[in-house]
């Protein structure tokens, strides 16, 4: 399975480029300027499409971790690690584009929107996962403990969501209009963006996975034939 994912990068690369171009084209020419926010509203088409890849990355991390604990095959751990690295990139982009959108529209850099705040906590979980991998001594313990953290972190997500809603849900901040039913051309652009970034996500994961695989090979060779 790892092979197939790695091989798919060759197809995914041109596909994602095309998809990105189509998406950008639609943002400029198809999506209409919104009444209230004006052209700034178009940040929606880059902010929201980052969400699915970010969460998908976390799902890969969790599933990869689970797979590793159950099968002890390093393939799974490589998948988890790749998911985490690519996922955290997209997660960071959500947290950066969010404020860029919020500032001109609502006057604050940060808004305590339920989704944005939950994403912030997710980001900290990603970072914790990556630090854990980096600081645990020994690569097998690192894989095992990281897998455990991935699972425990996933279990915490519904509670985090509930807690953030409880804590911040009552503030009278304008909610993200992304979910409130978009008219045709807007929806199409938003879908194009999501598709494009999903393809980019898949491509990046495939490449990152290959690197992890190659690194593992390199380690094997170093062990077998030290000095090469």
């Amino acid at each position, binding site marked *: 399975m790892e092979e197939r994912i790695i091989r798919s990068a060759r197809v995914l690369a041109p596909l994602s480029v095309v998809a990105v171009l189509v998406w950008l084209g639609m943002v400029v020419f198809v999506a209409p300027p919104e009444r209230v926010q004006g052209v700034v509203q178009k940040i929606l088409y880059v902010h929201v499409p980052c969400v699915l890849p970010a969460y998908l990355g976390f799902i890969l991390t969790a599933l990869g971790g689970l797979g590793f*604990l159950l099968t002890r095959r390093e393939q799974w751990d490589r998948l988890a690690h790749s998911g985490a690295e690519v996922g955290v990139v997209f997660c960071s982009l959500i947290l950066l584009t969010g404020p860029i959108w919020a500032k001109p529209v609502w006057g604050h850099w940060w808004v305590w929107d339920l989704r944005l705040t939950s994403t912030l*906590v*997710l980001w*900290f*979980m990603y*970072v*914790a996962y990556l*630090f*854990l991998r980096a*600081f*645990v*001594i*020994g690569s*097998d*313990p690192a894989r*095992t*403990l990281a*897998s*455990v*953290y991935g*699972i*425990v*972190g996933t*279990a*915490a997500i519904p*509670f*985090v969501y*509930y*807690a*953030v809603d*409880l*804590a911040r849900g009552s503030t009278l901040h304008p909610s993200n209009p992304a979910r409130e039913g978009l008219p045709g051309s807007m929806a199409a652009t938003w879908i194009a963006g999501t598709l494009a970034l999903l393809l980019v996500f898949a491509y990046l994961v495939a490449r990152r996975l290959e690197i992890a695989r190659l690194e593992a090979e390199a380690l094997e060779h170093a062990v077998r034939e030290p000095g090469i």
Partner: protein
Amino acid sequence: MSGPRVAAAVLAKDLLLDLRSKDRLGHMAVFAALVVVLLSISLPSGTPATRVWIPTLIWVVFLFTSLLGLGRSFQAESEHGAIALLVQAPCDRGWVFLGKAGANLLALLGVEVWTAILCTVFLDIVWAPALPEILGIGLLGAVGLAAVGTLLSAMASSARFREFLLPVLLFPLVLPVLVLASRMTAAALGGDAIPVGWWGWLALYDWVFVLISYFVFEYVLED
């Protein structure tokens, strides 16, 4: 030796260690006092605006104090190479977890009582009218923190930069406890009814994470 007996043995050993050496408990007590005093001196006195934040501040103090103690949860084993002995326990590793977490729970409950006393003295918090609720919140909060904290402390025990890693791992996971416990405490102190849903979610959190930690602990002890 059966599971529960192993758990009891681990708990008893840790408890004895805590009570005899007084390091961990003593340091936590001093730290909590330090922070409460710091807060009570620097917070503007008595305005309703400040008072609103106090339940959350109390729980934050508790969280940081607990961090101090949790970080040392496996220190004794780690220093004396005794982790291997834990691994060899002739039962589900989960029971070892329960013993360890139980000892941490008792320590955390002690910290809570101490912090509550400090808050009465320095922050004029009156606990009595809402005592049953406060006890319930304190228990549920401590169980959740003890469960997740013990698990993560074991994970971080052999890592580099342990003092940095543990909070980084812990805080995202324990946020729900902080939020729920603060809100519930604020409601209790303010004389408002605590929604059943809040109790439910906190209890669910405890249940889920004690269970998960129990099952997952054997993987953590491997290293």
